[in-house]
């Protein structure tokens, strides 16, 4: 759950803008190229020089994947109820309300239905900006419900994951969301309805160890960090430096845990083609 230790290369485009004086330019954290934001946007936040995929928000994935104007959001108003009255150095309720204000999101996932090249689909997109994309009761419930929407309407399900893992401020409730989402996906699978899992940077912890790894087809953006334990914890445990590229998409492809790596520009077309084969 490393959301608080954002590494330099993981800074979102929004915060990146502050590096550059007039707010119009972003720096690629992989190759260092300075790129105008408008050019970056038209290139779907992919560095035109080195193909580095900037981390983007849920709203951007919605506009990339779905046909314009077709998205209908579900459970938009659902927010965390702080079941444990959790308090560390800060009250969880304060953390939630500050994050809502800052991001304009109500929690770490947006769900709904829309069309992908004309095919009606159910979709969930996680968002790292909201407490590291962590999964608490709201994320679990929204994922479970949108899985049921796919199940009831017999439409394909797409989930774009982007998460540091389970949200510890909801204790065992967070943990149980892994079981909740996986059990609903079991029912969807038994009904023969396709589920495609898209992994973006980062997908770790309890999200990887539940719905993110359960797609009929699992695809990943280039160089996304994907794993169960965080690299820092693994490094501490084994007392050795981790090999180059460890827990990146290409590593998972090599080890047999993702079907293929997709460039963001091809994401929509690849999803369309897959749905065509899976329905």
């Amino acid at each position, binding site marked *: 759950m490393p959301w608080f230790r954002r590494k330099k290369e993981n800074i979102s485009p929004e915060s990146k803008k502050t590096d550059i004086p007039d707010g119009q330019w972003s720096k690629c954290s992989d190759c260092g190229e300075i790129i105008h934001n408008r050019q970056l946007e038209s290139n779907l936040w992919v560095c035109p020089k080195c193909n580095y995929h900037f981390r983007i928000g849920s709203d951007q994935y919605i506009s990339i994947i779905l046909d314009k104007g077709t998205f209908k959001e579900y459970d938009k108003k659902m927010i965390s109820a702080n079941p444990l009255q959790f308090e560390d150095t800060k009250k969880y309720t304060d953390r939630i309300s500050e994050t809502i204000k800052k991001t304009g999101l109500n929690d770490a996932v947006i769900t709904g239905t829309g069309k992908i090249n004309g095919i009606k689909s159910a979709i969930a997109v996680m968002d790292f900006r909201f407490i590291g994309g962590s999964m608490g009761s709201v994320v679990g419930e929204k994922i479970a419900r949108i899985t049921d929407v796919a199940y009831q309407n017999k439409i394909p399900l797409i989930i774009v994951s982007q998460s540091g893992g389970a*949200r510890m401020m909801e204790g065992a409730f967070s943990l*149980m969301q892994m079981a909740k989402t996986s059990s*609903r996906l*079991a029912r969807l699978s038994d009904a023969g309805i396709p589920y495609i899992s898209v992994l973006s940077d980062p997908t770790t912890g309890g999200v990887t*160890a539940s719905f993110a790894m359960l797609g009929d087809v699992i695809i990943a953006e280039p160089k996304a960090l994907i794993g169960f334990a965080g690299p820092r914890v693994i490094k501490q445990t084994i007392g050795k430096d981790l090999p180059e590229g460890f827990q990146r998409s290409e590593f998972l492809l090599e080890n047999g845990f993702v079907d293929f790596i997709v460039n963001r520009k091809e994401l929509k077309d690849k999803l369309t083609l897959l749905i065509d084969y899976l329905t």
Partner: protein
Amino acid sequence: MAKNTLDFEKPIVELENKIEEMKKYEGQLDISGEIKKLEEKVEELKKNIYQNLTRWQKVQLARHPERPSTLDYIYMMTKDFVELHGDRLFKDDKAIVGGFAKLDELKVMIIGHQKGRDTKSNLYRNFGMPNPEGYRKALRLMKLAEKFNKPVITMLDTPGAYPGLEAEQRGQAEAIARNLLEMSRLKVPIIVVIIGEGASGGALGIGVGDRILMLQNTWYSVISPESCSSILWRSWDFKEQAAEALKLTADDLLEQGIIDRIIPEPLGGAHKDPQKMADILKSILIEELNNLLKIKTDKLIQYRLEKFGKMGVYKE
């Protein structure tokens, strides 16, 4: 004083030692009255201490090195145990054990995390931290139980899934995720018992079932108090506060509606009287199994789905 005495148990052990000492002179001196008084005092002290344990103290009891493990319970509760090994894909993970056993006349599949008791056995068991092959072995045994219509009992006792390089390479996350999905639709009853530590996805990886039971002095949460402290307080020193904040004890989880039942332990913890603990657990397991075996398969799976569906608190 025994090396495994926890801090809060020291006053008890001190008094018990004193009584032992006095008993040596009982023949020569007339001190039986005093001994009796002290013994009463010990009993009172025990009740006082063990009934008012903090959450962190319960975490310590859950980790007590003398606490009975999965294999201990299997040997104490069942007969004709046949241990089955291996995931048929890579190797046999020693941190998860399983096999067929008989609880009186009930034939069951029992699967659990397995810790060691000393350094050597802990290294052999990887401290009860499974690799992917452990979860895959567990799943293989569950599917075997399903095929031959035997109920499954799982016992949770792990500080977490092993965070290692090879574990990631072989798909730790996929192995756990697969188990969650398959357990949610397994066609035989599953009873889950938390017998020690229930740490995060590593515990839940064999923890989806129809009845979730928790021994009185155990913990179950999304993260250990130490790791929670290091992340949220950015220091290892706030584990007591983290344990309080996480609300991770059996009482907490019953209140949260996540577990179904608390199994009482002998005074001072399961390790103080392992056989008594095993007898209590056995009778409860038989009772619970007999109830579950009356439910038709499709209903069983539907209830299981609804059970986990209800977990979570949010506002709309």
